[in-house]
C-alpha cells in the first residue's frame, strides 16, 4: 500500500537555533518520485518513530527532497532524533510523498505561516511565484533569528511577502483582519501553531470553505474529551477487542501484540488506514475524503460512533 524509498542524507544546515534543514537524495539510480506543493514526506526517524514533514519545495529541480525540522522540547522524540542522530551519508527509510494540503487553481492566493508552519507554505509560495500567480505571503515568527528561510524570502518581491516578528509580546501580534476581511475570489492557505490556527479560523469564519485550506501539524488526538468506549471486531476472525475511552484502536492492537503500521498517529498522514466493513465511525482524521469514509477508517484517531465497528487488519 505504501511504497518505501531509501533516501540518503546529502546535506544538513541549521536554519535557526532550533530548525535544521535536511536535504535527501535517492540512494540508488532511480529518480525520486515527484511531488506537488503542500506534500509531506513520512520518514522512519532514527528514534524508530515514523514522522511526517512537509517538503519545502527547495531544490526540486535537482531531484532532492528538502524538509525543515524543528527540535521540540518534550516532543515525541522523532524530530529530536533527526537533529541528534542523522548524519550526512546516512540512509533513511521514507514513503513516497503524499499530499493532504494541495494547491487548488485560484485567481489569487493568501498564504499565512506561523513558525515551522512555513514548510508547506514555502513550497506553495515558490510554486505560485514561478507561475507568476498573484500571491501574498504573511509569515509570522517570534524574531528574525527564529525565522527559517528569511533570506530566501526577503530576496523576493517585497510587495508579496510580509514577515512579522512579535518578539514574544502579545501586544505585537499582527492584526490579520485587514487581510481576511474580504475574501473575494482569493484562496487562503495556512499552517502554524495551534493558537494561530484558531485565530485564523475565527477571523476567516465568513470565508466560503471552498476557499480555505489549512494543515494542522499539531495533529488530532484519538481520545479527547469526546471519546467513549466501544468494541472493535476483526472481520477475518470475528475476534473482539474492547477499546476504552482513553485509548485509540492502535493502542489496543499494540497491547494485544498486533503491530500495525502507523506513522503520525494524529490522523494526518494516512499510513494506518484500515478497511471498514461494518458499523458507523466517528471520523476524526483529516486524510480521508467523504467518499473514502464509507469504507475506511484511520485507527489512530477515529472511533466507533456507536458500540461496535468491524474492520479488516
Amino acid at each position: 500500500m505504501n511504497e518505501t524509498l531509501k533516501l540518503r542524507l546529502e546535506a544538513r544546515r541549521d536554519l535557526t537555533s532550533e530548525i535544521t534543514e535536511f536535504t535527501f537524495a535517492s540512494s540508488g539510480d532511480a529518480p525520486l518520485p515527484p511531488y506537488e506543493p503542500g506534500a509531506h514526506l513520512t520518514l522512519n526517524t532514527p528514534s524508530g518513530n515514523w514522522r511526517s514533514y512537509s517538503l519545502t519545495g527547495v531544490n526540486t529541480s535537482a531531484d532532492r527532497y528538502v524538509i525543515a525540522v524543528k527540535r521540540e522540547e518534550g516532543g515525541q522524540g522523532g524530530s529530536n532524533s533527526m537533529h541528534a542522530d542523522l548524519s550526512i551519508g546516512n540512509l533513511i527509510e521514507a514513503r513516497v510523498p503524499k499530499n493532504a494540503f494541495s494547491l487548488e487553481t485560484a485567481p489569487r492566493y493568501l498564504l499565512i505561516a506561523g513558525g515551522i508552519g512555513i514548510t508547506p507554505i514555502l513550497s506553495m509560495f515558490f510554486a505560485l511565484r514561478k507561475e507568476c500567480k498573484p500571491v501574498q505571503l504573511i509569515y509570522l515568527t517570534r524574531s528574525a533569528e527564529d525565522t527559517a528561510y528569511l533570506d530566501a524570502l526577503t530576496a523576493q518581491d517585497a510587495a508579496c511577502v510580509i514577515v512579522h516578528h512579535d518578539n514574544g509580546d502579545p501586544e505585537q501580534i499582527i492584526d490579520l483582519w485587514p487581510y481576511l476581511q474580504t475574501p473575494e475570489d482569493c484562496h487562503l492557505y495556512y499552517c502554524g501553531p495551534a493558537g494561530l490556527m484558531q485565530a485564523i479560523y475565527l477571523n476567516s469564519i465568513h470565508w466560503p470553505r471552498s476557499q480555505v485550506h489549512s494543515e494542522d501539524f499539531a495533529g488530532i488526538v484519538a481520545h479527547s474529551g469526546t471519546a467513549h468506549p466501544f468494541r472493535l471486531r476483526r472481520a477475518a476472525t470475528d475476534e473482539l477487542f474492547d477499546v476504552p475511552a482513553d485509548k485509540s484502536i492502535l493502542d489496543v492492537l499494540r497491547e494485544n501484540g498486533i503491530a500495525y503500521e502507523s506513522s503520525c498517529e494524529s490522523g494526518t498522514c494516512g499510513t494506518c488506514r484500515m478497511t471498514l466493513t461494518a458499523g458507523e465511525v466517528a471520523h476524526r482524521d483529516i486524510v480521508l475524503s467523504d467518499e473514502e469514509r464509507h469504507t475506511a477508517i484511520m485507527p489512530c484517531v477515529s472511533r466507533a460512533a456507536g458500540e461496535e465497528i468491524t474492520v479488516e487488519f
Partner: protein
Amino acid sequence: MCFERGRMLTGNIQALYHYPVKGLTAQRIDHVRLNPAQGFPFDREFGFARHDSGYDPNAYKPLPKTRFLMLMMDERLAGLESHFDTETWQLSLHVQGKPLMAADLSTQKGRQETETFFARMFDMTADEMPRFVHAAPHRFTDVSVASEALMNAVSLINTNSVKAFGEKIGQEIDPMRFRGNILFDGWPPFSELDLVGKEIRIGDARAKITLRTRRCAATEVNPKTVKRDLPLPRLLVQHYGHADMGVYAEIETGAEIEPGTPIRCEGV
C-alpha cells in the same frame, strides 16, 4: 407547594435572551413583557430559509429546523456576532469584534446583499440562495412543528443543571450552547425536568411547563471556539439516560420580568 427533597424550588433569573433571527447570535435583553400564550417578543420570528425549504410567505406552515440556516448544520454561524434591530430590521455582523457588514433588511437591496453574503459564506450557488423570511405572528422555533402552543413557548435553562452536567463530564459547559430565553439558577440540578405539566411563577407571571427540551447536535458547537468539541446529546444520554436540557413553558398570565426576578414552582 412544590418540594424537591424537602425544599421549595426558588431561584432567580440570571439573564434573558431572544434570538430574533434563527441560527444567529443570542441578543441579551434587560427586561421583557411576557404575554399569555406568547413567546419572547421577536424570538425566532425571522430566519434564512434554504432555497428548497418549501417556505411560502403567504401560507405559513411549520417547517423542520433543517430547512433554515442553523447552527446544527452551519456551525460557523456561531462565529458571526450578529445584531438584528427588531424595530428597524437593521442587521449588523461582526467577526471577532470587527465590523463585517451591515444591511437594512426592510429593503429589497439589504435583503439581497445579506442573502448573497450567506450564500457565499456557505458555498451555495445562485440557485441555492437562502431567503430572508419573516413569520410573525409565527416563529421558526425548533418545536414549532409540534404545535402552535409550543411554537409560542419560552425556553428555560436551569444553569445549575448545566453546571452539574459539566462537573459530570469534567468540563465547563457554556450555558449559551443551549440557546434558551430565560437562564436562571437556584433550583437543584435537573429538578425542572420533573415539572412537565406543572405550573411555575416567574415574578408575577404564571407559566406551565409543557415539554422537556431534547437537545440536538447544535449544542456540540462551542460558542467561543466555533468548533464542535463536546458531543453533548450523547454525553447527556450516557450520564442521565436522556438527551434533555431545559424545558419549554407556556405563559398563562403575563408580567414584566428581568434579571433577578424570582422563579419558583408554584404547586403540585
